[in-house]
C-alpha cells in the first residue's frame, strides 16, 4: 500500500511537470500553467506548490496533512507557439476533474496531444502569405504590393522554417526570415516598379512579429508574475530587433532610404 502511494506520487509529479513544461513551451501564460497544474493536483488530492521560471518549472507536492511527498524540476525543450497543445491540455484537465480519469489515462492523452501533427507545411506557407497580403491591403496597399507581400512572406517563412530545422538560434532564424523577405520585396522596388515601397517593405516582415510573447508578457505582468512578464517582454523586443536588423541589412544592400 505504502509502496503504491509512493509510485503514484512519483507518477503524478512527473505528469504534472510534463503538463507544465508542455504549456510553457507552447506559449501559455504563467497563471494558466499554474491553474492547470493545481487543478490536476487537487483532482488527485494533493496540494501543489509551483514556481515558474522563464525556462523551467519546479514543483512540490504535499498531501492533505502538508507532508512533502514529491520534489521535482524540469526544464523546457525548445520554445515555439502551439495552441493545439494549450487547448488540448485545458480540455484534458477539465476531463480529468469531471470524469475522474486515472493517471495512466491522463498520461496517454498527454502523449497523444504532444504527438498531434501541425498543419501541413504548404498550408502554413500559403495561409501565412495570404495573411501577409491581407496586412498589406489593410495598410492601404494595392494589388501589386499585395502580390509582392505574398511572395516575400512565402520566401521569408520558408527560410525561417529551414533555419529552425537546422537548429539555429531563434533570433537568428527570425533575422534570416526578415532578411530574405525584405530582399524579395526590395528586388521589385529596385527593378523600378512604380509601387509604394513603404507598404511592400513594412508588410513583408509582419509575419515575424512576436505577438504571443507580447500579449503573454502583458498578461503575466497584470497577474503579478512580474519576472516572467519582463522576460517575455525582453524576448519580444529581441525578436523585434532581429526583424529590424534584417530589414536594415536589406535596405543597405539595395541602397534604399
Amino acid at each position, binding site marked *: 500500500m505504502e509502496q503504491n502511494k509512493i509510485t503514484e506520487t512519483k507518477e503524478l509529479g512527473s505528469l504534472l511537470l510534463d503538463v507544465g513544461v508542455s504549456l510553457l513551451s507552447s*506559449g*501559455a*501564460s504563467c*497563471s*494558466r500553467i499554474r*491553474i492547470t497544474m*493545481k*487543478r490536476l493536483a*487537487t483532482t488527485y488530492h494533493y496540494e501543489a506548490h509551483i514556481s515558474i521560471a522563464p525556462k523551467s518549472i519546479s514543483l512540490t507536492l504535499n498531501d492533505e496533512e502538508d507532508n512533502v511527498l514529491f520534489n521535482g524540476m524540469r526544464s523546457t525543450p525548445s520554445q515555439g*507557439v*502551439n*495552441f*493545439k497543445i*494549450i*487547448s*488540448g491540455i*485545458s*480540455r484534458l484537465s477539465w476531463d480529468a*476533474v469531471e470524469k475522474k480519469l486515472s493517471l495512466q489515462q491522463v498520461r496517454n492523452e498527454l502523449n497523444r496531444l504532444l504527438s498531434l501533427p*501541425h*498543419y501541413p507545411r504548404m*498550408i*502554413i506557407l500559403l*495561409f*501565412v*502569405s*495570404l*495573411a*501577409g*497580403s*491581407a*496586412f498589406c*491591403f*489593410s*495598410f492601404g496597399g494595392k494589388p501589386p504590393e499585395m502580390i509582392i507581400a505574398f511572395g516575400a512572406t512565402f520566401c521569408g517563412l520558408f527560410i525561417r522554417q529551414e533555419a529552425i530545422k537546422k537548429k539555429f538560434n531563434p533570433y537568428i532564424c527570425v533575422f534570416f526570415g526578415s532578411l530574405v523577405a525584405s530582399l524579395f520585396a526590395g528586388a521589385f522596388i529596385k527593378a523600378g516598379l512604380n509601387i509604394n515601397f*513603404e*507598404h511592400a*517593405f*513594412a*508588410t513583408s516582415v*509582419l*509575419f515575424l*512579429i512576436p*505577438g*504571443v510573447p*507580447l*500579449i503573454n*508578457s*502583458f*498578461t503575466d505582468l*497584470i*497577474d503579478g508574475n512580474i519576472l516572467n512578464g519582463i522576460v517575455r517582454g525582453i524576448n519580444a523586443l529581441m525578436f*523585434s530587433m532581429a526583424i*529590424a536588423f534584417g*530589414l*536594415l541589412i536589406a535596405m543597405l544592400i539595395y541602397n534604399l532610404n
Partner: protein
Amino acid sequence: MDWIIIFSKAFWCGWAALGFGILFNVPPRTLFALWIGGAIGCFLKFTLLQMSVGVVFASFVGASAVGILSIPIAHFRHVPPMIFAIPSVIPLIPGVFAYRTMLGLIKLTGAIGTDYNSILSETVNNGAKTLFIIMSLAMGVAIPMHVMRKESAKNIRLIKK
C-alpha cells in the same frame, strides 16, 4: 463614410487572423471563429478611424471587442479564450508605424542637418503610437480574459470543497 473600403479591409483582416491562427497551430474547429474575430476587430477599428477617432483608441476598442467575444467563443468552441483572442488581434498590430519608427531611429544616428528636428518629432510620434497601440491591444485582450479567469478559478474552489 466609405463602407466599401471598411468592409473589404475587414474581410482581408479576417484572412490575416486566420493565417496567424494556422501559424500558431490552433485547433481546426476555431478557424472560422478566428476569421470572424479578426474581421470584427478591424471593422470597429476602421469605422472609428473614419469617424476621426484617434488610432490608439480605435485599436483599443477593436481589441476589447475581440477580448469580450473570446469569452462566449471559449465556451462555445471549448478552447481557452487566448487561443481565439491572440490571432484575432494580430491584424490590428501597427506594422507601418513600427516600420517608420525603426527607420526614423536609424536616420537619427546620422549627422545633424536642417531636417533633424522634423525627423526627431516624427520618430517620437510614430514610436509613441506604436507603443501605445501595442499596449492597448494587450490590455484589450488581457482584461476580459482576466475577469473570465477569476470566475473559473472560483468555480474550481466550489467543486473542490
